[in-house]
């Protein structure tokens, strides 16, 4: 199981490549990626599929509707929590 910081780095790499973005000045780990226009509904499907396949987690409807799923920090926290069974 990856440490939270490693997990966040891995997810950052995925987001950077898959969504053609760069984290830095305009986009931070706390940026709402929906409001920023980075992730649309197809992107969300892509992201959830990647998280479930790569990290072996099952995300519930409540997880998907959670504000955590909007930011890089929140996504990593969500995956970490599901990996540890909480």
């Amino acid at each position, binding site marked *: 199981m990856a440490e939270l910081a490693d997990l966040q780095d891995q997810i950052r790499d995925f987001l950077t490549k898959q*969504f053609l973005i760069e984290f830095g000045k305009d986009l931070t780990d706390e940026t709402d990626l929906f409001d920023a226009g980075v992730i*649309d*509904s197809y992107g969300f499907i892509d992201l959830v599929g990647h998280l479930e396949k790569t990290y072996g987690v099952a995300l519930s409807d409540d997880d*998907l*509707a959670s504000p955590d799923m909007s930011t890089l920090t929140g996504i990593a926290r969500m995956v970490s929590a599901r990996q540890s069974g909480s």
Partner: protein
Amino acid sequence: MESTLRSCRRCLLPATVPGLTIAESGLCDICLVTPPEAELAQQRAEIRHELERIVATHRDVEPYACVVAFSGGKDSSYTLKLLVERFQLRCIAVTIDNGFLSKGTAENCKAVCGSLGVDHLMFTPNQQFVRKMYGISAVQEDMHAPAAIQRASSICNSCISLINTHILQKALELGAPLVAGGYLGGQLPRDAATMSIRPGQQARPRAALIKRFVRAFGDAARPYFSLGRSDADADREITVINPMLGFAVLEDEILHDIAQLGWKRPRDTGLTSTNCRLNDLGVYIHHRRHGFHAYAFEIADQLRHGLISREDATRKLNTLPEQTDIQWLADKIGVSTDVL
């Protein structure tokens, strides 16, 4: 080491695609991780199996089990045929008239639905709004997520958002548990072959889309992109199916099969569309702005799956719309070609 090739030797994706690397072997990084054909065939078989499982639980739903996004083009016509004949679903076909449908499209819709015995609805959104949406989408570069440039042109992405929303609205209204599209590989993730959604579950990306579109197109955009008019709607489960992702069908086979239903290829829709005349303007702008064809990912996926010949793929990728057509289309949506 990176190659100096201008495009992948297998799928023809050009090196101008943002984030794409072409290795010394001449293969792009997508081709390098694409499984061999036997594994792709297995993946398609799994999608078909999942489709059969989903459909089996909804076959007896009345009045309609499935609302089908039916553009009247070749892929959605073939999708409708699959859903009715192979999957035995009670379907209603819904077409959005965006004001740019080829004259032959209405006839094709009538012929295909008539042959398959399917009810058909044509929805014509406010044409002033639609033209404004297209005009702004043509010139404003940040209308969509950056990665959306891999799926379609900006004009088409706005249109697809409107169509997808309308189909979901119609499924909620009619109580249909399924919605279907005729999307192909490369147009959307393969995970999207079957997916269960609740409007409430997608509330965040939906709210962000509405906010962005209302800011760009005005308040008139809201009803075209809103879902979940009540808590009950937000909790309703709808399964989205894109059956074409489970089949490997050559374009010629598709054209042959839908010809049996009375479908005829329109002559005025360019090389990459079989229903919409505006598509060419989207292709033109996308190529100028991003340096690659708006259908490059779709064609690349077809090449990887052996569904198109290299010759046909090259011809489609290298044929751009005529300047006179671009001028005419730009005029129709109130955009000067000087700013494109």
